[in-house]
Each structure stands twice: as C-alpha cells, then as structure tokens.
C-alpha cells in the first residue's frame, strides 16, 4: 500500500483488459440477443438479463478491489464497507421488485383497463 513503493502498473492494465473484455461481451450479447438466452426465463427474468447482472457484479468487484484498492486494506475495513452495502442493496431490491410485481398483477387481473 502507501508504504510499499513497488509499482502496480501491470495489475492495473490486466484489470483494464478484463473490464474491457466484459464490456465487449455485454454489448455483443445486447446487440445479437441470442434467442436461446433471451426467450428463456428464470425467476421472472430471462437468462440474458441474468448474465448481464452477473457480469456487472464481476465488473464492480474488479473496480472496487483493484482500482479502489480494497484488496490492500485490512479485512475489517473492507467488510465494514462491503457487507452493509451488499446486504442493504439486496434487501431493497428484493422488496421493491416483489412489490412492483405485485402491483403488476393487480393491474393485470383487475377489470379496469389502465393504459388503452
């Protein structure tokens, strides 16, 4: 870290390469949208979207660990940041998406038309 004066340049360019490859894969998948992935659903989301989300989390991992240098911090510091973030985001997303889906069903099953 700050006290060690050796250079991390090689690691930085490796991470840049990884991030670029992931982005290119994402864009390629987004443009071609293979039917096998796009039209197969898993828990209300199609497989393509699951792939996008997983790749995004991988990118976030590399940015936080390598660029923001969490890998060099003490693990107590690292987890005091990452643990609340991960827990609260999963919690929030879970609740809001469940609720959104519930409202969708109410709209869908009701005798009234909402958008016409």
């Amino acid at each position, binding site marked *: 870290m*700050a006290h060690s004066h050796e250079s991390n340049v090689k690691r930085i360019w490796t991470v840049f390469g990884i991030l670029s490859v992931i*982005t290119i894969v994402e864009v390629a998948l*987004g443009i071609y949208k293979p039917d096998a992935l796009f039209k197969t659903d898993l828990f209300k989301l199609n497989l393509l979207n699951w792939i*996008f989300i997983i790749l*995004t989390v991988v990118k976030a991992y590399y940015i936080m660990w390598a660029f923001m240098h969490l890998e060099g911090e003490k693990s107590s510091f690292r987890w005091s940041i990452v643990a609340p973030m991960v827990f609260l985001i999963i919690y929030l997303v879970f609740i809001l998406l469940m609720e959104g889906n519930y409202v969708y069903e109410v709209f869908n099953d009701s005798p009234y038309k909402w958008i016409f």
Partner: protein
Amino acid sequence: MAATVTTTTATTEKTWGGGNEPMGASYGKMMMWFFILSDALTFSGFLASYGFSRFKFMDTWPIADEVFTHFPFLHGVDAPMYYVALMTFILIFSSVTMVLAVDAGHQLKKTKVAIYMLLTILGGLVFLGSQAWEWKTFIKGEYGAIETTGGALLQFVDKEGERVNIDDFALSIPTERVNHTESNGIWFESSDRLGDHTVEEVVEGFKANPDVLIRTEWINEDKQKTILSREESLEKLQNAKLVVRGANLERNEYGHKLFADFFFFITGFHGFHVFSGVVLNIIIFFNVILGTYEKRKSYEMVEKVGLYWHFVDLVWVFVFTFFYLV
C-alpha cells in the same frame, strides 16, 4: 493540521490527538469510503425504484435498444448501444489513468501524477460532452408518436415494421392555431407549445397512407412491440389526443411516461457526480502542480479523489446495465 492529512506524521501523534487509525485507514480515506457507501445506497435506491416501475409496467415498458440508436455523425444509421458502450470505455479508461496517477503518487513522481491527473480530467470532460449529446438526441426525438385519451402511446411503422416519421405522412391542413401566451390571458398562464402537426393532420395523413401501421406499447410473446393491422390501427386512432415529439418530464415519444423521468433523473444525477468529480480532480491537479503533496511527502489526497472518481465509474457500470442492456 498535518496530523489529519498525512499518514506518515499521523502515526507519530498520540492516540487521542488524532493519531489513531482504526482499521488501518487514515481519517480522510475512511470518511471518503463511508461517504461512498451512503452515496452508493442513494443510487441503488434510484435504480431499485426504476426496477419497481419496470416490474409494475412489465408489458409496456420501452425497449432500450430501440430508443438509443444514434451515433454522432452517422445519420439514419441504426447503431443501438454503440454510443453508450463508447461512453463506458471512456469512463473506464479515465478510471485507469486515475489509478495510474495514484500509483505514481505512491512513488512520489510528481510529473507523472500531474500527467495522469490531466488525462483523467480530459476523460471526464469527454464523458460529460457525450452525455450532453445523448440528452440532446433524446430530448429532440426522431419519429414522433400519438398519445391516446387513455395515456397509451402509438408509434408508426411501415409494412416491414420499420419506424415511420410522422412528418413523412402527416398532411398539412390549414388551421388557425395560436399559441396562447401569458400576456394575453386573464391569468398569467401559457398553453403548451404547439407542435409541428395537429392530431387531425396526423390522423388524416394516416388514413391517406395505407402502408402505415400502428405499433403499440404492448410487448408480445416474441418480446417485440405489437404491430396492429390496418383496421385495428384506424380504430385505435379514434382515441388520439396529442402529438408527442421528443421527450420531457411529462411525456415522451419512446413509451411509458416514467421512462424519460427515470432517464433524466438517474443519468442526470450521475452526470452531476461526474461534474463534481472533474471539479475535485482539477483542484487536486493544481495542488499537484504547485507541489503541495511533494512537500507533504504524501499523495494520499490523490488517492482520496481517486476513490470518488472510481465510484463514479462504478455507478455508471450499473446505470449502463440497467438502463441500456437489461
């Protein structure tokens, strides 16, 4: 003074005099991290509410790669996502130059830090410019659409399913439309700006052009927007109420009204973060040039703004996924 900013002198202070470094991180760095944590939760609140609305209107939400199809200097070329992908690369690359600046700072190489900081600032400015262009294209719109009395949006396509601009078929029927202005009213209110075409012109033009069909917001089993037959289209048009062109906070020609609101709010808030990041980087850049950190024998300040800059990149990675890909 020095005790709060540099790591090297901080450790020599007494524990209760500010020299304590819990979890091995200096005060400034730790607080930057906790700020980032809270800001990350703010952004996840925005993105989660976007997800909420999208799940709520699952069947009618706009398809992103039909909305963002423009690339500068390529007129009429259908280029879904290339532009945002380019923007992502610009931001990731400016993150790389930032981390290289931090790395050079650890070795106390002043010139290298300055050069990398400058490159980072340039990357940030290019990104901001790209975003301005993206907004301009989004606000201006391209094809136009019709809104019905029920709030649904009707777009126009030809027999092959290609989008048709309403300018291409709308008739021009002479009317005496006057934009109501504040100065003519009893109350100081003005009407909405009159569009290029009246609803009547679009409807009559549609009737005169048998090749044009209506595309609704509904997504069918093939995960594409439903295209109506000619008869259904004519029936739908009886409810036409407004001609929509481009996007604003009330309505947009791309689909559901909330779509543009979320677009403006989330990318705008992110753009504001990029802007403040650029300002912070400029301040630190001048400090580097002036030799402030050279005197301190510590470039930790570069590391702190670096954290913020990477965070901006991190948020963009998520905005990119949830707005343009998913």
